[in-house]
């Protein structure tokens, strides 16, 4: 039997969802850094996107190439291939993904069938038998009574049909062929893990999963604030949970960007042995400049409910009562799809009478520069992984006032003040105390600058990924599950 020689440059399949290379943002910047900084690997980027006609926002280097994206919710037909009988597929997926104790291996088995018979997926979902079996399976899921799972709501047929459509697109995503590689790297525990999980099950290729946030937590937050019907909320969150559990079960290593995320992941059932925290990092900044001393407070982040801009505005109003000379500048665009929230922020700004004391500055391409012009950097999020805005603040030796969510306490230790989320009074007091005590503020800033060099160095972050991916390519991670023999090359 011939053994295949591994290529001189290990090939990595990087799967992304709604980020690199088509959207600007934290995850995309991280992908770009990794791809550019590791030319010893051959990168193949597989984006999963909603249909759009935008060109890529990032140019990939010569050692990387972007594969044709997987378009979900599009009109395109599935890839060619066998057309088997998959009429039980919708029922298998709803059981595997939505039951509280659904089986990740059953989900992967169903996805493997999609890969083997890509044309059968559409046929199955368009069949009356597929729909009837799905309804029966969904009724079983809704009849589940597990105390910690709460009581599932009684979905109506519109919600059931919407969920059916989403499962169809999950199956379509699983059916897309993936190239021959030595390492799989998924960038979230959601949709981007689907092709990677199927590829791993087929070939035993090691799978590394990086979570910047926690996909499941963010899905719950989105559902909680969206005002959706109980049925839609249930379907969205259970689906996210099913995808996450499957991704965790398939991953050989999960690399969260902060240990706070690792606590969530292990709390959700991830084997602690699989966790390898790799914090993000920043290039070492030159010697910091002194703060302007004008009472300027800067925040950087999208205008999004997760950033809790409402609390930021109320905190600004409360701060201005304590320090009338203070003034605020927020840099960041409104998240696409959150325009209503953006308008509510403008309305609240007006109601609070903040005027020119709090200014929305729009997007910035120079976060370090805008932070340099601050006396204090503010962050009021209700969900964070490891926010780059805080690392930028530390790079410029600016003190931080931030809410204690996600990896924030771990970052801000000794270089700022952390207060409970959604507590505008505490935020205002923290801001006022730093503005009134510039020496303390300067000391915290200097400590942050030193801490950045010690703990959040970009080169260190890249080195750790280099080691991890090399180990994976060389088969030095945990022994992967034996590959499944399937007649179709994926």
């Amino acid at each position, binding site marked *: 039997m011939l053994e295949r020689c591994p290529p001189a440059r290990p090939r990595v399949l990087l799967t992304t969802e709604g980020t690199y290379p088509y959207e600007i943002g934290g995850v995309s910047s991280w992908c770009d850094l990794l791809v550019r900084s590791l030319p010893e690997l051959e990168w193949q980027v597989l984006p999963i996107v909603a249909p759009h006609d935008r060109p890529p926002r990032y140019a990939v280097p010569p050692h990387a190439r972007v594969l044709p994206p997987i378009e979900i919710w599009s009109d395109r037909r599935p890839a060619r291939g066998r057309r088997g009988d998959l009429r039980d597929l919708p029922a298998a997926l709803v059981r595997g993904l939505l039951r509280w104790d659904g089986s990740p291996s059953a989900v992967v088995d169903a996805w493997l069938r999609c890969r083997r018979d890509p044309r059968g997926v559409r046929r199955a979902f368009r069949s009356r038998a597929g*729909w009837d079996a799905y309804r029966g399976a969904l009724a079983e899921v809704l009849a589940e009574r597990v105390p910690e799972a709460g009581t599932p709501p009684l979905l109506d047929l519109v919600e059931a049909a919407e969920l059916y459509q989403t499962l169809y697109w999950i199956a379509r995503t699983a059916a897309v062929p993936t190239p021959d590689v030595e390492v799989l790297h998924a960038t979230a525990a959601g949709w981007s893990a689907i092709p990677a999980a199927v590829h791993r099950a087929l070939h035993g290729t090691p799978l590394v999963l990086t979570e910047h946030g926690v996909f499941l937590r963010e899905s719950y937050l989105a559902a*909680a604030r969206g005002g959706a019907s109980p*049925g839609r909320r249930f379907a969205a969150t259970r689906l996210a949970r099913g995808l996450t559990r499957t991704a965790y079960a398939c991953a050989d290593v999960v690399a969260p960007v902060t240990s*706070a995320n690792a606590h*969530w992941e292990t709390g959700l059932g991830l084997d602690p042995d699989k966790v390898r925290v790799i914090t993000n990092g920043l290039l070492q900044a030159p010697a910091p400049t002194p703060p302007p001393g004008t009472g300027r407070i800067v925040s950087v982040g999208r205008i999004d409910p997760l950033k809790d801009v409402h609390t930021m505005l109320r905190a600004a109003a409360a701060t201005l009562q304590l320090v009338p000379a203070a003034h605020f500048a927020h840099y960041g665009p409104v998240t696409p799809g959150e325009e209503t929230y953006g308008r509510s922020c403008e309305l609240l700004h007006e109601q609070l009478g903040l005027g020119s004391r709090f200014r929305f500055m729009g997007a910035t391409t120079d976060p370090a520069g805008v932070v340099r012009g601050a006396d204090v950097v503010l962050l009021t999020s209700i969900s964070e992984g490891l926010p780059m805005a805080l690392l930028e603040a530390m790079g410029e030796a600016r003190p931080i006032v931030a809410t*204690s969510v996600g990896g924030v306490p771990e970052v801000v230790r000794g270089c700022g003040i952390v207060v409970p*989320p959604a507590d505008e009074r505490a935020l205002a007091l923290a801001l006022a105390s730093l503005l009134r005590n510039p020496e303390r503020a300067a000391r915290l800033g200097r400590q942050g600058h030193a801490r950045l060099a010690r703990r959040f160095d970009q080169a260190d972050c890249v080195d750790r990924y280099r080691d991890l991916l090399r180990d994976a390519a060389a088969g030095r991670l945990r022994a992967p599950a034996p590959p499944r023999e399937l007649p179709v090359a994926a």
Partner: protein
Amino acid sequence: MSADVVRARLGRPAQDMLEAAVVLEAWTGAPPGRALADGRRLMSGRPALPEVSVSAPPAAAKPRRKALEAAAFGVAVVAVAAWARPLRDLIGASGLRDALRVALPLTLAVQWTLSSRYLSRPGGVATLAARPALLAAGAAGLLIPAIAGAGAVGAVAALLTLLWCGGAIAARRGRPMGFAAAVALATPPLLAGASPWLVLSALVLAVAALAFAAPGPRCLHPGRWDRALLAGLIGAALGVLLVGDASLPWVATPGEALLLAPSILATVYGGGALWRLPAALSGALVGVRLHERPGRAPTRLLLGALGRTVAISLALSLLCRELVPWPSSPVAREAALCGFALLGLVTLLASLLEALDRGGRVVLVLGCGVALELLIRPPFPGAALIAGAATCTLLLIAAAVAAVARPATAVATHLWIG
């Protein structure tokens, strides 16, 4: 305390332990481990009764400007009927008949193809307009073989096809009255003896400008080619059904063209009424539980629209019988009116089933209808058209009722899975 925070933040109890944990972490700053433990503890009580979820009703489809479209088609039909004499003078009565027998199926095939791939999508016209090479190749592909193969007759057929296709695009863009006005303005010069080649060519260019001027934003993806080609087959089959009955004289006089007006106007009305059917199908599922049977509102809407279409067609046909002069036997006129009315229903039903992604069945049924029409030996003029169209009507009504009688299956397996 935790339960109060969760309820205050959500405005309701938590759905499950994870939602409770996420809320506790996000709004109290509890570390993940404690938040998860507290979330689990909060859910440890007696299971609540299931909440009844009712989705929001689907947005109503934007109403089409039925009256305007109907008026525009009416004006266009009357005007084109008036062209019969000058065109007959140009290429002869049999030439005109042949030109129409080619132009009508071709027009319907192109219109259905374009509609499926471009026109039925927001921004579809702009996407089509952005492909001038495709448009030019299409026009040349129509004109050159037609002229090479059939000379003047072919040229008339090709120009009429281009004109009617341009008219359909203009109507879809909300400019039906512009199309009608262009056609009406072209009629006096034609009747006054101006060169039909000149007038028809100028009219085609004017309607093309009307169809493609200021196209606006494009759609992301046009429809699939396979589905568009299937739609084109449906259009072609409808056209063949329309002109396939050799016993009908086919536009030797303006009156014969006018016989099409009742069914066209009724079909425009019926199409407007059925426009609401996809929304009615999903609307019928709102608040209906998994094991329950949805209401019959979509079936009622379908049958009501068909009934009203028949009534309008009947009333207009009776009016037409009284007003339109007819040189040959009255039986042929009444048979033609009846056949056209049935064909209008077939068009309506085919359009509905195609929208529900059941184009394959429609092609099969129309194939049967066309075969019957072509093979039958008609006992009176128009009988073959009636037989073919009636067969298609019955089969398509059965297929349409079967599709809308199970709204959940139709929505889940066909409307929402493309």
